[in-house]
């Protein structure tokens, strides 16, 4: 097993291709007591990639709380698992597919969905919902529009074909994501207690089966690709992007459903990043055993594929199973019924290593202690960004760029605040017949069959002020998720995180990552939301420019009674409009740092991030849940991006009724010229905008006073206007036009290449 006949160590260039450093290579040699051969080096490159090994982030992730009485499985398996009671479990996970989506938007996004579905399928669960978080550059740029449209097409194509509803998500556009789009997909599944599968290999002699697609040359070194900077050569890496086949995966899904819970099934794992090598090595490592793979038994799509390509291919729609010896034919027959190829490709061995043979000839043998657990942790330097000199008051307060009405309409017309219906009407969000509240609301709600309960699902990212304060901005993302769940009366069960960051070798980015994880850990503890699964995506940078810190968070909550869901928005004339939570904070009661208003006015966040009081967030969420359960609120909506102004407009447009309200804040003695717009559009945290029957006010007042949550009655529902007395008023129709028209309007810009001699439309 010498290195292909030559003893020369790999060149720096060869190592760079594998994203390994010379130090890492040296460490591998020391641990092995020899130099790895070429195949072994490839396996190490894949398994030691950032994507597979978390070598940079692992030491940080340990601080995330992952336990609660509900948590059945925390990080470490294919997906996290929480107990819904009554023998039903919920599995969920979110994952990034940023790099592939940047290079080949349709297939990159589609295979991201396919991959996260397989993570849930591998738990023995039936996927019941998909959600996504997408970030692109500004849509004024035709290239961004085209790529964004194609990512949406890819997500829709995969989910629509496989028949799992896409029930929610978020979109955000900022030039900081122009060269590094973010595409994060979350999947939620349900499984009965006894059918939960685990991703492990054990029992010497047990056969290892590969089922699904044939193995091709696609995606070789995809894990490595995801672990380096996107550069001008990225286009040449297109072969590192895989091609999806949702039809095949649908058959895999159904077959795995039939086999979950089978007493002869030992382990089930999807082939994701680093393909067979990672799937087998990780299963064996979890099971405390080893695996031997005979590459000749792997069904190949192309001629002439050697062991290196077979082991590192990332061909999609493949899963690895370990079954009890003697049961393999029964399993193969089951898969055959669904038209799926299934081959015995190896067996479990006692020695804890990954052994690869080619026609019986051993071609690689690596101890799992080296391959899976041996990567030297990286501790790149981190350096805090100097805190910006507190520039108070905010320039927008001093010199407002627009009158308050215009500022309000501009924020409503920003694709970041406006309705993303343009996106989700391309997604089947209903298949399965369980979607009670679909996309576009605070949280999606699914019913649980045969129960009064439901699931609440929400995807939220760090507040844009994470650029100013990554710790607080990340914590705000979780607080927003908690508020979204509270609006439908749901208690949080857990969160899955997808940590999207730039170049970890930039001390600033490393500091952002450390701060963000610390902020998430603190918020998760304080808010009582365990982090049960997740994924880290580093190297989202281009020509030295990193993306802003962008953790996305996917929350799952339990709705105790679907009959008690509030209605969407202001729907009954004469109802009271109330603000729950503190009305404002900061100088003059307004906070503009990182707000959408600030972004539109000045291009980037400045000043300080809004204040965040986690204890108050927790109290308010609990009080809102109680109020929803007691049917005290007709509607409830959280104030997030765009502040009170956007929350008011959305509630009015959803419910079809205007409102006349007062400002939640009394004007200061000498208000700054931009105060009115800042009241409307500042993004003070911890607030909910509700409407209620006036007859329930006394009870609500008592309940909130007892919980220590401020309540301010602002006005009444009704009419064709949205008016905040003394601040601004806009017609309801104008608000609707902005909210509903912004994204379709932005996407209707001229297509890429239009005016360059290309035909614009189809010819008949």
């Amino acid at each position, binding site marked *: 097993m010498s290195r292909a006949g030559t003893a020369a160590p790999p060149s720096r260039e060869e190592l760079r291709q594998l994203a390994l450093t010379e130090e890492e290579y040296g460490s591998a040699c020391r641990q092995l007591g020899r130099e790895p051969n070429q195949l072994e080096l490839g396996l190490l490159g894949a398994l030691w990639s950032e994507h597979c090994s978390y070598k940079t982030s692992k030491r940080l992730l340990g601080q995330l709380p992952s336990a609660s009485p509900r948590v059945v499985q925390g990080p470490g398996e294919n997906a996290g698992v929480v107990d819904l009671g009554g023998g039903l479990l919920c599995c969920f996970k979110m994952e990034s597919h940023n790099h592939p989506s940047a290079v080949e938007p349709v297939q990159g996004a589609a295979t991201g969905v396919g991959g996260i579905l397989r993570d849930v399928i591998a738990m023995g669960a039936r996927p019941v919902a998909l959600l996504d978080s997408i970030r692109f550059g500004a849509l004024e740029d035709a290239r961004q529009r085209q790529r964004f449209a194609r990512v949406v*097409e890819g997500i*829709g*194509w995969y989910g*629509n*074909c*496989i*028949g799992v509803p896409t029930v929610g998500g978020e979109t955000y556009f900022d030039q900081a994501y122009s060269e590094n789009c973010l595409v994060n997909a979350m999947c939620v599944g349900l499984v009965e207690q006894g059918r939960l599968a685990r991703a492990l290999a054990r029992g010497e002699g047990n056969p290892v089966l590969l089922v699904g697609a044939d193995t091709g040359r696609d995606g070789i070194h995809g894990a490595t690709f995801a672990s380096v900077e996107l550069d001008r050569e990225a286009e040449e890496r297109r072969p590192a992007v895989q091609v999806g*086949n*949702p*039809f*095949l995966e*649908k*058959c895999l899904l159904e077959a795995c459903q039939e086999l979950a819970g089978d007493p002869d099934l030992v382990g089930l794992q999807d082939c994701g990043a680093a393909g067979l090598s990672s799937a087998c090595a990780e299963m064996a490592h979890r099971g405390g055993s080893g695996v031997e793979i005979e590459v000749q038994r792997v069904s190949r799509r192309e001629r002439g594929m050697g062991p290196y390509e077979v082991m590192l291919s990332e061909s999609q729609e493949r899963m690895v199973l370990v079954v009890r010896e003697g049961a393999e034919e029964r399993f193969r027959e089951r898969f055959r019924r*669904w*038209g799926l190829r299934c081959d015995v490709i190896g067996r479990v061995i006692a020695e804890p290593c990954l052994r690869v043979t080619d026609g019986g000839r051993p071609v690689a043998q690596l101890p799992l202690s080296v391959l899976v657990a041996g990567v030297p942790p990286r501790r790149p330097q981190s350096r805090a960004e100097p805190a910006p000199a507190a520039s108070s008051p905010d320039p927008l307060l001093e010199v407002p760029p627009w009158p308050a009405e215009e500022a309000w309409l501009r924020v409503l017309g920003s694709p970041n605040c406006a309705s993303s219906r343009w996106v*989700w*009407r*391309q*997604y*089947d*969000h*209903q*298949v*399965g*017949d369980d*979607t*009670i509240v679909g996309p576009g609301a605070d949280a999606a709600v699914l*019913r649980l069959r045969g129960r009064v309960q439901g699931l609440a699902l929400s995807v939220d990212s760090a507040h844009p002020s994470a650029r100013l304060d990554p710790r607080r901005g990340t914590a705000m993302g979780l607080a927003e998720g908690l508020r979204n769940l509270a609006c439908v009366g749901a208690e949080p069960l857990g969160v899955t995180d997808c940590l999207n960051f730039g170049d970890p070798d930039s001390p600033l980015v490393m500091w952002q990552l450390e701060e963000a994880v610390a902020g998430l850990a603190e918020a998760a503890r304080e808010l009582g939301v365990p982090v049960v699964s997740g994924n880290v995506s580093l190297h989202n940078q281009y020509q030295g420019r990193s993306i802003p810190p962008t953790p996305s968070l996917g929350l799952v909550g339990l709705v105790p009674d*679907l009959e008690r869901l509030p209605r969407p928005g202001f729907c009954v004339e004469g109802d009271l409009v109330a603000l729950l939570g503190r009305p404002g904070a900061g100088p003059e009661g307004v906070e503009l740092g990182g707000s959408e208003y600030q972004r539109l006015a000045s291009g980037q966040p400045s000043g300080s991030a809004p204040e965040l009081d986690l204890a108050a967030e927790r109290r308010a969420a609990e009080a809102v849940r109680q109020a929803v359960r007691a049917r005290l609120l007709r509607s409830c909506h959280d104030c997030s991006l765009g502040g009170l102004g956007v929350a008011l407009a959305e509630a009015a447009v959803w419910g079809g009724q205007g409102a006349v309200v007062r400002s939640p804040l009394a004007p200061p003695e000498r208000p700054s010229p931009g105060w009115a717009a800042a009241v409307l559009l500042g993004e003070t945290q911890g607030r909910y905008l509700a409407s209620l029957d006036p007859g329930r006010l006394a009870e609500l007042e008592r309940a909130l006073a007892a919980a220590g949550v401020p309540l301010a009655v602002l006005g009444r529902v009704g009419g064709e206007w949205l008016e905040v007395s003394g601040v601004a008023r806009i017609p309801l129709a104008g608000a609707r036009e902005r909210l509903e028209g912004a994204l379709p309007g932005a996407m209707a810009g001229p297509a890429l290449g239009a005016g360059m001699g290309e035909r614009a439309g189809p010819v008949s």
Partner: protein
Amino acid sequence: MTTRFGIAVFPGTWSDRDCAHAAELAGGEAVFLWHAERDLRGADVVVLPGGFAYGDYLRTGAIARFAPLMEAVRERAREGGPVLGICNGFQILCEAGLLPGALLRNQSLQFRCQPVWLRVESCRTPFLAGGEVGQVLRMPISHGEGRYYVDAGTLRQLEQEGRVALRYSEADGRLSPDANPNGSLGAIAGVSNAEGNVLGMMPHPERACEPLLGSSDGLRLFASALAALSPP
């Protein structure tokens, strides 16, 4: 005896369980019919549900029409048994020659999932027998290729014979270009065969069978078939 709904399952079908649920809500019994078997398992009503049968390779429904199960469905259709094709099921019925026309890519060239209003144009089929012409139903669509197309001669024939069963309309039954979500010819959402026993439609009645899901208008189709088969 309970009316038995046979729900076809092709590889790639995904409305099978939703249709079974709807059939049960209507008071029927549901059995699944496996694509590779030529067996209707004693079903009184055959439902071809939505999905992407055999991956919809080549054209939607183009491979499914060769399934062994479809031989049994064709025979049942010829005998006058009620057959309902929903979404992909409609596409399969067209490919199988049991219904005229074809379903083309949506005019928008995008997939569309949204609620629509449907005006009942004819109550000849057992699935709409309990309703009234002019009645407006609410249910969702979810498809990328649902633009109904048929040649002018056949269209005239369909109209004359009362075989246009459902049209996309406004809530009050008016027809308008805005109400037509995919550019279907004549706003046609559903058609039947000459005898009336085979109905194909792009919208999903099985997704509109409970108030909790926003509408129970879809349940009428299942209940109506059940009533049509029950002895008086």
